[in-house]
């Protein structure tokens, strides 16, 4: 009898756990479905191919091309800047610190802690610096802020891949008389798919962030022509237009949400494909 009750309890929890687990699929589906349902009707070639025209914010003509291009500039610029810093750090952790496990743990701890710092704090920090330097909101300030924000994610992602590169490779390269830089380039080639995944991860996080660029990148109806000009971004365009009481303006916020979600999903699928290649490359 005790046994029976035990198995009833186990089965009950098993079904409950399965229910909660599969509800996550439902949640994802619901989010994407709702964004599509609201945004798809508002989406048109005009909306994605034009910048705002006169009276745009009262529901008149124009589109969100300024935000699309601005977001791409911002995400691309910050991912490139960030990988310039992140790649050497990731290689440093796996090559130079290979014999110093404590230091590896310490740097990983700092990176994980940095990862937890809210984007709004990065935004406030950059704003404080801009105030001190007398700088105005610009694409450059946004790029630097996002580069700092995505740096920990990028380094950790590359770090995870480089961990699995066999040490023998490092030892044989060094023993043949290669410099540390030359050895690093070998590591680089081995980890290339992983580096690409890390880049995409940073890009996706950068293009989706709102809070960090709220003070730093400004907002404009034009497509920026230099990095000293302010730029619009998709998240900001969603955020600002959604607070409008005018239905047409709100509809374009939903359209922008569809564009942003689509970009993120495409990147996510592509990086999944890349990382499936990584695991083929590195498992021995």
């Amino acid at each position, binding site marked *: 009898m005790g046994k029976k009750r*035990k198995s009833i309890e186990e089965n009950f929890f098993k079904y409950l756990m399965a229910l909660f687990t599969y509800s996550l699929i439902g949640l994802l589906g619901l989010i994407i479905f709702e964004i599509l349902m609201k945004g798809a009707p508002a989406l048109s070639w005009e909306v994605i191919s034009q910048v705002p025209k006169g009276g745009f914010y009262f529901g008149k003509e124009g589109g969100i091309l300024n935000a699309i291009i601005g977001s791409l500039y911002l995400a691309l610029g910050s991912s490139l800047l960030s990988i310039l810093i992140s790649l050497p750090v990731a290689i440093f952790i796996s090559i130079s610190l290979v014999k110093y496990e404590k230091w590896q743990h310490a740097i990983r701890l700092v990176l994980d802690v940095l990862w937890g710092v809210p984007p709004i704090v990065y935004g406030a920090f950059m704003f404080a610096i801009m105030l001190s330097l007398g700088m105005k909101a610009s694409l450059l300030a946004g790029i630097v802020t996002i580069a700092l924000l995505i740096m920990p994610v990028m380094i950790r992602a590359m770090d995870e891949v480089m961990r699995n590169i066999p040490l023998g490779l490092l030892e044989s390269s060094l023993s043949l008389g290669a410099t540390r830089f030359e050895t690093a380039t070998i590591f680089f080639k081995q980890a290339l798919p992983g580096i690409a995944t890390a880049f995409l991860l940073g890009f996706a996080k950068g293009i989706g962030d709102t809070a960090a660029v709220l003070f730093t990148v400004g907002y404009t109806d034009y497509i920026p022509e230099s990095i000293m000009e302010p730029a619009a971004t998709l998240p900001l365009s969603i955020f600002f237009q959604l607070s409008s009481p005018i239905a047409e303006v709100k509809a374009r916020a939903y359209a922008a949400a569809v564009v942003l979600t689509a970009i993120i999903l495409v990147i996510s699928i592509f990086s999944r494909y890349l990382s499936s290649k990584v695991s083929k490359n590195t498992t021995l």
Partner: protein
Amino acid sequence: MRFTRKLKEYTAGTWTLFSVGLVLLLPLFLAIGIAIKAIPIFDHVSLSDMLFSSEWQPSSGKFGFLPFIVSSLVVTAIGLVLMIPFGLLPAIYLTQYASPGVLRVMRSVIDILAGIPSVIHGVWGVLIVVPLVADYIAPIFGKDTTGYTILAGGIVLAIATLPFVLHMLLEVFRSIPIELKEASLSLGATYWETIKKVVLRKAFPGIIAAFALGVSKAFGETIAVLMVVGNVVQLPKGVFEAGYPLPALIANNYGEMLSIPLYDAALMFAALLLFVIVLIFNIFSRLAIQRSTQQ
């Protein structure tokens, strides 16, 4: 030839040193950069007034952060309560019961959920969660609201933070040695008993740490919450009232903060407060996770 090799080695070495230095010192830079701009507020308002007063009138120099701190705490607490079942149950199911195929599919689902930007959660919250609170949940309790409430903030927060917590929980459960389970099963315990009494007990510190990280992530979540929480400066008396969390305060007022004296310093103080709280939570829980997954 030898010279260019040396030059390359030297340049790469210097650049690496600079990059590593930047990463290691960044937390310090963040703290100092924000603190310097926050200092002027301390000359005019005492720390205890800022933390425990609820008088918020920037134009007359009154900066009591209590309404914002309480809002942040309550919204985060609601988020945590919702995250516990939706984090723990799937994590146990996926690591202990599910087939490798299911685990792989669900990992993808969780990763994609984790990639959804904050502002999209906000849009979704406005479209679904706010009406849900206004039309269905609040009437059950006999309340009449617009739906832009602390409760809506907490729900959106839970959805936005859950994938991050789940990811962490999966790591924690995966690191539990299979031998422990085998020992328990061979002594005649059922599979469920083993999970309850061995796996959960062993994973306990890791579970706490994962949720602590979730709390700190939730505490700093800005845009998604800001879009649904109502943003009214008041000490919230219930979950069906509007709240105004700290990150929302910073995000909403950057525009006018330069026109009122001390306002910029006050907002920087809010950012500093956020940073310090999140930092403390993070350091302790990361250490705990490192320890529990390395065993």
